[in-house]
Every structure is written in structure tokens, then in C-alpha cells.
């Protein structure tokens, strides 16, 4: 291997050739780059730098991001400075960092930059100092200092050049190690947050679909939300419910939330009056929560048999009782939980009376829309606008609207409402002559409406086929060639699609309509089989008024109501 020609240079007067310096630099860089234990490698590096530069002492100072200032982390020589703390700008080292510039002290005895305290305390005699900052793209992270050339000469510009070269790989290695540590810390935090989030989700009750009157929705803009809700059955048939909000965000809030949620559930199980329920939880929380955090909560019971609701709030935004277009605000009478022991909490008793009880963790009544409060009338309008739709899409629609108004980004809603039959929405009404030539346009209209509500194509085509078969049957069998009309209506009721075909033909005996066995291969009777295969159910009824027939076909399409689940 050819060596680069050795070039003597005035830049390296400290007794080494350029080639020797470069070889040492390469060695040092590699040692630092491959190091698994940076602290040990740095210690070795500082020793080697001291030997290479033929100096009596060397030390490495790093900025302490937590305490501020500089701390001596490594030291070689007769005096151990490890742990010595300096302010940035103080002494030669502090100045090298503050100015991000190499400092050369030719005569330590007279140089005003030199802090002579160490010498005074240890008896060491500092003659000459050289100090260079450890530079990174974001400024210096510390400094490397050498003291007293062993040959007694003061440090010169050439020495400064060498130290600067040697400081570069050290700075790089330290900076990389710091960034790696930060990355690991971030990953650890993310794992912790993820765990906390899953713990929180696990605390929320499972959605109950058996016509249960309570529904909770939690929309969180943050990884960890301080919100929670709960509901449970009591032995006496009543249903207990809880909604709460822990102050602050982050892991501490999440831990308090889990504790508060457990306490509220525990106390609610006893069937205590809501005010007493809150009082008991407040006492418990006050004994253990001292860091200024608190919990806002609303708790209550609902008796399905009587429609009676009793509830109490602790610093929670007013619950809203919506009934027939009117909104009653039910404010909390007590302060948040976990602040002061011995508090009393007042409650509300009322009859749900077929209405709905809304509890929003973010206090929709308090929130602002631009400069103006949304206020009770705004909330009333908002709820009224969505009152016609099924509970879950309604809650989601409310949240979407509140978000659009930039009123909330993180909220939990609890809705208490007896399930009811919601008014069906008519999607299509089409009257046409009972003539096979008109079926094509009926199918086109049907395809359009099913596309509009987002029915996927395979199901859409099946539904079109089934309704077409039904209409063909009306034409062939009910009217049997006689002229007449067919009225088609398509309705959506929550997740149910209903297709109704009304005719004015002579009444058909439903018993005559019997699909054939599909495994039998013959041309006739296939239409009813297709209808059976596609629809969930169908029935033929005499039309009201005694003239004609109404054929109703129904298909459940759950995705119609739960797009977001």
C-alpha cells in the first residue's frame, strides 16, 4: 500500500508530522465510531490525546442540559476535576463554549481568563492552556481542554489546530450517542403511552346492542385522553352511569383516570344516592391525590321501569335533558373531586319522559363559537338538527359538527335514551305502469338510489334483481296481463332497507306463493327463490282499503348506520 507522501508543514510544529497526526486522528475516529461503550472509549480517547499531544493534563467538559452550565465528565492528569461545574462563559472552558472558539492561554499566571482556584486548592501549577469547543451542527456541546506541554513550551497555533482536529470525532460520537439515547427515550415513552391508551380503552364498557338505553362515544385528539365513561346494571334493575374527565393530559392524568374510574364504579355499585356516591369518591381521592390534579364527574341512575333519573355532578358541565325540542340544563352542584375533602354534592331528580339525556365532557354549553358562545339555544338547535337519526350516528354527527365549529377536539359523550323506532327515511318513490317494458327504468332508478347511499355493487345488483323479480311477479301473476300501476317505495330505517311494491290488482293469496326447491332444475318459480336468497324477509299483505296487494321486502345493511366503526 502506498503511503501518502509526508509533507512537512508549519501548521504542525508540536513535534508530529502531518501523516502521524492524520494516522492518529483516523485511529481515534474509528475507535469512537465503533464504540459500544462511549464513556469508556472517550476516557481512553482523552488519555491518548494527552499522550499524543505530550501534555500534563486533559479534560472533557460537557454541557449539562438539565442543570445548565458545563460539567467535567472525564479527566486525565495529576488533578481529578471530574464533576467540576462551570458556568458557560466562566474560565477558559466556559469561554471556549460561549464563543464557540478555541482558546490559547500562553501564560496562565497573567491571563485574566484563567480561574486559579483549582491551582490554589491542589498545588498544581498551570502554565499554559489550550481549549477547543466540541462543535455540532447545533452549536457546541462541550469542550476539550489540555494543560501544560510536557516540554515546558506554551501552546501555539499548531497545537490548537491538532486539538481542533481531535475534538471533531469526539464531538460527533458524543452527539450521536445523545441522539440515540433520545430516540430510545422517545420509543420508551411511545410504548408507555400506547400501553396507557390500551389500558384506558379496556376500562370503557363494551357497547351493548340489546336495546340498552346508554351509549358512550369517546373521541380523542390526543394519544391519552383523560375522559372516561361507564355503565352497569344494579341488582335492583336500575342502571348506573358515570362520565368523567381528569384534569391534564399525559401519563399522570391517565393513571388518575384509571383510579377515578375504578372508584366511581366501586361506589356506584352500592346504589348510594348520587350525591353520596360522589361524596364517598371525593373523600377517597382527596386522601391520595395531592399533585393538583382533579376529576370532574357526573354520576347517576336510571330506572327503566319508571323512566326516573337521578344524577349529581362534580364540576362537570351541565347535562342536557332534551325533550320534544326543549333543552333543560342540569348543572353540577359540587366542585370537582379530589380537591377538598368534606364537600357535599347536590343532585337532580327527573323523569326522562321519552326524552334524551346528553352529557358532554367538554361542556358544549360553555364552549365558544368564534367569539360567541354556542349557548343553550345553539345546543338545542344542534341536537334538534340531528334528533331524527339513530343514537350512534347522531352522536358522531354532533361531534363532527362541534369539531367543525372548532369547539372541541377531544370529547366524550354519554347519551341516555330509550331505543325507539325512528321515522323511516324515504329514499325513492316511483309509480309506473305494470308493463314489463317499464322494468328497465325502474332498475336504473333503483341502482341510482342504492349507489347514492353507498351500497356496494354486488349487493346493489342483488337488491335490484330481487325487486325486479318482485315487480315481474306483480305484472305476471297479480295483474296477469291486465293493465294497472305499481308504486315502488324505498325506505331506510336505521340499518334496514325496505322496498315496498303496491299494486291495485285482485288480492293474491300469500299461500300460493311458494318458492321451488333450488336444487330442482326447471325453468319456472325461480324469481321467488332469488328474492329469498337476497332479502332477509318479505311479506305480502292486502293493501289497506281491501283493493290490491302490498309486497314488502327487507334487507338489513348495517353499514348504513355504522360507517365509522
Amino acid at each position, binding site marked *: 500500500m502506498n503511503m501518502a507522501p509526508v509533507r512537512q508543514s508549519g501548521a504542525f510544529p508540536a513535534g508530529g508530522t502531518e501523516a502521524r497526526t492524520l494516522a492518529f486522528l483516523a485511529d481515534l475516529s474509528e475507535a469512537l465510531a465503533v464504540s459500544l461503550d462511549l464513556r469508556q472509549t472517550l476516557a481512553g480517547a482523552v488519555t491518548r490525546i494527552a499522550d499524543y499531544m505530550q501534555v500534563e493534563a486533559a479534560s472533557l467538559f460537557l454541557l449539562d442540559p438539565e442543570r445548565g452550565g458545563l460539567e467535567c465528565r472525564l479527566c486525565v492528569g495529576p488533578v481529578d476535576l471530574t464533576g467540576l461545574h462551570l458556568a458557560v462563559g466562566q474560565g477558559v472552558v466556559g469561554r471556549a463554549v460561549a464563543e464557540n472558539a478555541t482558546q490559547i492561554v500562553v501564560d496562565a499566571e497573567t491571563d485574566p481568563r484563567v480561574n486559579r482556584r483549582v491551582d490554589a486548592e491542589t498545588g498544581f501549577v498551570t502554565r499554559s492552556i489550550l481549549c477547543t469547543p466540541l462543535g455540532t451542527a447545533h452549536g457546541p456541546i462541550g469542550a476539550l481542554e489540555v494543560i501544560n506541554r510536557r516540554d515546558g513550551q506554551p501552546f501555539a497555533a499548531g497545537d490548537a489546530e491538532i486539538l481542533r482536529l481531535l475534538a471533531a470525532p469526539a464531538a460527533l460520537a458524543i452527539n450521536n450517542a445523545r441522539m440515540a439515547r433520545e430516540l430510545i427515550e422517545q420509543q420508551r415513552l411511545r410504548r408507555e403511552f400506547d400501553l396507557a391508551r390500551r389500558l384506558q380503552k379496556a376500562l370503557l364498557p363494551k357497547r351493548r346492542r340489546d336495546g340498552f338505553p346508554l351509549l358512550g362515544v369517546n373521541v380523542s385528539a390526543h394519544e391519552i385522553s383523560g375522559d372516561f365513561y361507564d355503565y352497569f346494571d344494579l341488582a335492583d334493575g336500575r342502571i348506573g352511569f358515570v362520565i368523567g374527565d381528569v384534569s391534564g393530559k399525559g401519563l399522570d392524568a391517565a393513571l388518575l383516570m384509571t383510579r377515578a374510574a375504578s372508584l366511581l364504579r366501586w361506589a356506584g355499585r352500592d346504589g348510594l344516592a348520587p350525591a353520596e356516591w360522589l361524596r364517598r369518591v371525593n373523600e377517597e381521592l382527596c386522601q391520595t391525590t395531592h399533585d393538583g390534579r382533579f376529576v370532574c364527574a357526573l354520576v347517576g341512575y336510571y330506572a327503566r321501569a319508571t323512566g326516573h333519573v337521578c344524577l349529581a355532578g362534580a364540576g362537570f358541565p351541565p347535562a342536557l335533558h332534551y325533550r320534544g325540542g326543549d333543552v333543560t340544563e342540569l348543572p353540577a352542584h359540587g366542585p370537582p373531586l379530589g380537591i377538598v375533602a368534606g364537600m357535599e354534592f347536590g343532585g337532580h331528580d327527573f323523569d326522562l319522559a321519552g326524552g334524551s339525556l346528553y352529557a358532554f365532557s367538554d361542556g358544549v354549553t360553555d364552549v365558544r363559537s368564534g367569539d360567541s358562545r354556542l349557548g343553550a339555544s345553539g345546543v338545542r338547535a344542534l341536537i334538534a338538527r340531528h334528533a331524527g337519526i339513530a343514537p350512534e350516528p347522531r352522536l358522531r354527527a354532533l361531534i363532527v359538527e362541534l369539531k367543525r365549529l372548532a369547539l372541541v377536539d377531544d370529547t366524550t359523550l354519554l347519551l341516555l335514551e330509550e331505543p325507539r323506532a325512528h321515522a323511516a327515511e324515504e329514499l325513492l318513490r316511483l309509480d309506473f305502469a305494470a308493463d314489463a317494458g317499464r322494468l*328497465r327504468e325502474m332498475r336504473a332508478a333503483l341502482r341510482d338510489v342504492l349507489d347514492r347511499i353507498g351500497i356496494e355493487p354486488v349487493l346493489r345488483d342483488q337488491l335490484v*334483481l330481487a325487486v325486479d*323479480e318482485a315487480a315481474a311477479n306483480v305484472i305476471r301473476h297479480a295483474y296477469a296481463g291486465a293493465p294497472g300501476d305499481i308504486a315502488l317505495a324505498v325506505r331506510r330505517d336505521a340499518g334496514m332497507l325496505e322496498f315496498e311494491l303496491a299494486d291495485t290488482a285482485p288480492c293474491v293469496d300469500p299461500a300460493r306463493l311458494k318458492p321451488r326447491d333450488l336444487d330442482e332444475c*326447471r325453468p319456472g318459480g*325461480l*324469481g321467488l327463490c332469488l328474492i329469498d*336468497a337476497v332479502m332477509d324477509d318479505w311479506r305480502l299483505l292486502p293493501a289497506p282499503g281491501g283493493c290490491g296487494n302490498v309486497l314488502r321486502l327487507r334487507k338489513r345493511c348495517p353499514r348504513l348506520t355504522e360507517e365509522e366503526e
Partner: protein
Amino acid sequence: MNGVSCESLDGAALVRLAGEVDLSWSQEVRRTILDALRGAAAVGVELSAVSYIDSSGIAALVEGFQTARVQGRRFVLVGASPPVRAVLELARLDRVFVLVEDASGLCG
């Protein structure tokens, strides 16, 4: 557009259907298929341009299939389009019919 036509191919007949086959003209489809069966040892019904078919159209195909079987002739559906296949599957007839990709399989 709706359409039905019949062409002969060395002793075989190919009935071409297009458009939406429904109650309004499925009788015409039925007659064309039965006529084709009278003059050919093998009949194929080409369905690649059929965008919709109802049970009366399927019934015409079933009748053709059964007539051919009684007479010992070959009856195949050629290039059934996805909408046709969907209805055949729904009626569980996809395994009753012989389905081929193109008319070259007509005599095989």
C-alpha cells in the same frame, strides 16, 4: 342495446345476447334458443354483452339446457359476463350449466 341473433358455425349455432334480459323480451330469447337447438348438434349462448338477466332470462337458458339434454345435443354458455355469473351463482345454477370462455369450446 338489447339484442338477440343467431349464427351458424359448422353444424353448431351461436346465439348472441346483448343488453338487459328481462321479462319484456325474454320470450324472444327463449324462442331463438329453442329454434337454434332444432338445427344444430351444439348450441352456444354468448352472454358477454349481457349486463343484466332476470329469472325469466335464466328460465330460457334452463329450458334450452333441458331440451338439449333430452335430444342429446350440446348446450353451453359462452363468455358469461360477471352480472350473469352473479345471478347463476345466486340461483345455484353455475354448476348445472357448462360455461366456456369463448365459442371455440362450443363443439368440444
